[in-house]
């Protein structure tokens, strides 16, 4: 079943005198449970595509349907709400809240959704255990390595039971061991819970583990390979 349906999406940036087409009529369908990597050289449009799928940017033309809902024309505040309840984000720079502990960071999204305290704490503990950070629950981001912070970010992204997780270059700042560790966790979550992951990446190690690789070039899909 199609979870994300991108139909003839164009994105033109008019910020300079010369309009720049970042996406040129992209059509794409991502199903539930997929582990997809969007790859391509710099400027190919992969981050733009990821931003549009995540409701962070809007298409100049075309439509986007996520979990059966057309979000192309949602207002900014509706999009914030939509993101909160449907999408988990993992960023290249982790972007945890620096003053909160690992557990509080994971709880944060659930808190925004209005979960009860007990349930929040229980879920946060469970997720941190799943990503192998049980002993770091009370550590602040500054007390953790990059790999550990990114694992907390994954736990945070999964906390609210999103429909899918969008990860923008999640391994770009990690060493090999941390990268493999993070990928192991994500692959396991994907296989065990059928969680859908969509990555934009340059990292060959991520590409090697992905089960579907979409290659973008000059704002268009050049290849779409299922492994």
């Amino acid at each position, binding site marked *: 079943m199609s979870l994300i349906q991108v139909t003839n999406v164009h994105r033109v940036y008019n910020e300079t005198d010369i309009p720049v087409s970042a996406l040129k009529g992209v059509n794409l369908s991502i199903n539930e449970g997929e582990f997809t990597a969007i790859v391509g050289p710099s400027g190919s449009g992969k981050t733009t595509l990821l931003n549009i799928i*995540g409701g*962070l940017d809007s298409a100049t033309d075309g439509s986007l349907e996520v979990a059966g809902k057309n979000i192309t024309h949602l207002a900014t505040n509706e999009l914030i709400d939509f*993101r*909160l*309840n449907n999408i988990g984000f993992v960023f290249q720079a982790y972007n945890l809240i620096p003053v909160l502990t690992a557990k509080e960071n994971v709880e944060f999204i659930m808190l925004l959704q209005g979960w009860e305290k007990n349930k929040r704490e229980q879920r946060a503990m469970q997720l941190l255990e799943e990503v192998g950070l049980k002993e770091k629950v009370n550590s602040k981001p500054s007390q953790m390595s990059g790999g550990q912070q990114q694992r907390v970010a994954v736990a945070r992204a999964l906390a609210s039971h999103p429909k899918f997780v969008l990860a923008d270059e999640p391994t770009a700042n990690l060493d090999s061991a941390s990268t493999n560790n993070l990928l192991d966790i994500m692959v396991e979550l994907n296989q065990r819970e059928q969680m859908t992951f969509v990555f934009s990446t340059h990292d060959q190690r991520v590409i090697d583990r992905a089960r579907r690789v979409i290659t973008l070039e000059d704002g268009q899909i050049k290849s779409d390979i299922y492994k």
Partner: protein
Amino acid sequence: MFYLRLAWKNIWRNKRRSFITIASILFAVFFAVFMRSMQLGMYAKMIDSVVGSYYGYIQIHSKGYWEEQSLDNTFERSAHLEKEIKTTKDVVSCVPRLEGFALLSFGEQVRGVSLTGIDPNEENNFSSLKNKITKGNYLIQEDKGVLIGEGIAEQLKLKCGDSIALISQGYHAVSAGGKYTIKGIVKLNSSRMNNSTIFMTLGSLQEFYGTGNRISALAINLKEGSNAANVMAAINPKLNVQEYEIMDWTEMLPELVQIIKADSSGGEIMVLILYMVISFGIFGTILMMIAERKYEFGILLSIGMSRLRIITVVLLESIMIALLGVGGGVLFSRPFLYYFNANPITLTGKAADTLRKFGFEPEMPTLLDFSIPLTHGSAVMMISLFLSLYSVFSILKLKPLEASKR
């Protein structure tokens, strides 16, 4: 509760910046409160010197007396009226006085003086006149002697035991004259009064002027902190408005009100300058905070935190910083206020002479009235909240994608 905790933790992310902001608010509140307390304390002292220790906060006269201060505008003393006034809420004392003018003759010297007839006991309770005796003794009931101001005594080289002659025009133009022995010399706050006032018992002066049982004023002192307008409103129904006039000290001494107003505006301008300086400081902090955390706000918007929630956290941070600064400033100022209230700064030199000339004591005690820190604390809080609106507008304008680009 979570947002409160988050805001609290955010404050201490940049400890140095938060400390500097809190300290700047703290010192602004401290200086504003201390400056105004000292200024208002000085005014209170001035009012007390002139009003509390002589004029009284309220006076009752025969209708038209204040416009034309003549013996013909005096009124019959009424024990019933005095009792009614004394039992009015917030009235501490009510004393009868008869006032007039006369020529004083001593040897070959003659000069104009102001005569005040008093009830020695009641007047002492009212203005502590006995404590102002520098030589000789205080008057007793039915005394035939007089107390003279220190200035007159120095100028005419008078001493206790000397006899002076007083000549004047009495009630209904009868001629008034008499010979009186100086019983004591008093040092009054006002140099004008010091150079011109002679006190005698009410009975003596009534006899001198031939006024019978008439008096020119009932001077009323009030409990500290009470409102003269409220007391006047309470006394009014007890008076025959056709016969009496009731005035508070601001009507009797408009020049004192003007002096205070003029001086107070200078203090208010200083406080405004202080507020402006602190406003720029707070605004600078907000600008830096917004610039520093723009990326973070973008990320929070991206992961689904609504603008309203982000604004709530940021406003809570501003409120907490302002509260810490204001609370610290108020607390920090209290010991200084208490100390300088108990040990007022005493002016010396020309400044002291000028104040004495106007009848004021040259002291600057601080006023402990809590409305001062409350006013200035609230003002700084309001400034902080107003300036925080900038962060609100910035967050409202924020686009998650643009903000989350480093």
